[in-house]
């Protein structure tokens, strides 16, 4: 089976790229060998996986510099069933450009805030550009940190359609358990009953993006 590559990307910092990458990887690891490549110089994924007593369910590696490209990613990590690329918050970086060229799917977490929406507007253009090289590239927006009682959160689904990129039906709600899991160096899958609802969200996202 060919490695399925998912890039979690957004030029805006704090959109939830690492949280989504790590929990997605934990869910995917139940389906096949999964590797998270931390392409962000901040190394948050690597730091996350280094915390806690239990090993993180997926392998996490940090990749820096620019002596690699989309081709070498595929060659070096073809043993894995799933590759999750946690991209830096910069669309112009070597890492982000190569990630878009390497991936089958770009998942774009967006917060329910106008500022985040405006800041993410260059992404559709970059994705179109990457498609000239990577013909199989698909992109999906994921609404992150949704607050069910907030009118703004509810209004996001319509406003986000202006992007011209499909939005996943499943959004991620704002939950403390996502942050607690990071602090404990685990995913929401290891958080017991506290993580139940969050796990259901991540599972629904996985089902949407790779099928059941």
């Amino acid at each position, binding site marked *: 089976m060919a490695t399925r590559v998912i890039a979690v990307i957004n030029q805006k910092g704090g959109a939830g790229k690492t949280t989504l990458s790590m929990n997605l990887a934990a869910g995917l690891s139940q389906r096949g060998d999964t590797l998270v490549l931390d392409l962000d110089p901040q190394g948050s994924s690597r730091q996350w996986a280094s915390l806690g007593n239990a090993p993180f369910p997926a392998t996490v590696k940090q990749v820096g510099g620019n002596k690699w490209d989309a081709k070498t990613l595929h060659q070096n990590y073809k043993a894995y069933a799933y590759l999750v690329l946690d991209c830096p918050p910069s669309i112009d970086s070597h890492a982000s450009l190569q990630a878009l060229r390497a991936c089958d799917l770009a998942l774009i977490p967006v917060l329910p805030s*106008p500022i985040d929406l405006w800041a993410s*507007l260059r992404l559709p253009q970059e994705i179109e550009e990457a498609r000239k090289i990577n013909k199989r590239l698909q992109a999906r927006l994921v609404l992150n940190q949704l607050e069910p009682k907030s009118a703004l959160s509810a209004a*996001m689904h319509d406003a986000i*359609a202006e992007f011209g990129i499909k939005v996943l039906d499943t959004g991620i709600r704002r939950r403390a358990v996502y942050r607690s899991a990071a602090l404990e160096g685990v995913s929401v899958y290891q958080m017991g009953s506290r993580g139940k609802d969050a796990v259901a969200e991540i599972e629904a996202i996985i089902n949407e993006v790779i099928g059941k």
Partner: protein
Amino acid sequence: MTRLKDKLSASVRQAKAAQQTNAKPAARKSAPAKATSRPATKKPPAKKATARQVTRPQPAPAKAAPAQAKPAVSVSAPKVSSSTVSPLYPNRVWPD
């Protein structure tokens, strides 16, 4: 709720348009650089100047104020309080 949706959608469209405008740098080299991509807010129409506003020769300010810092609307009380100023001959002070 509908209003919020519309407002949010409109803001995205506006930001998108501004982004596309900014993505065409070649033809705009000679144009002065804009501080932000936000469209300039429409200035209110200038008030019709009163005789006092137009004609009163103002003392030179100690420091040059920024261009838009203050509109030249407020003028302190006339120094020549016992005189009237003609709108036709602004530099002339006519005795009462």
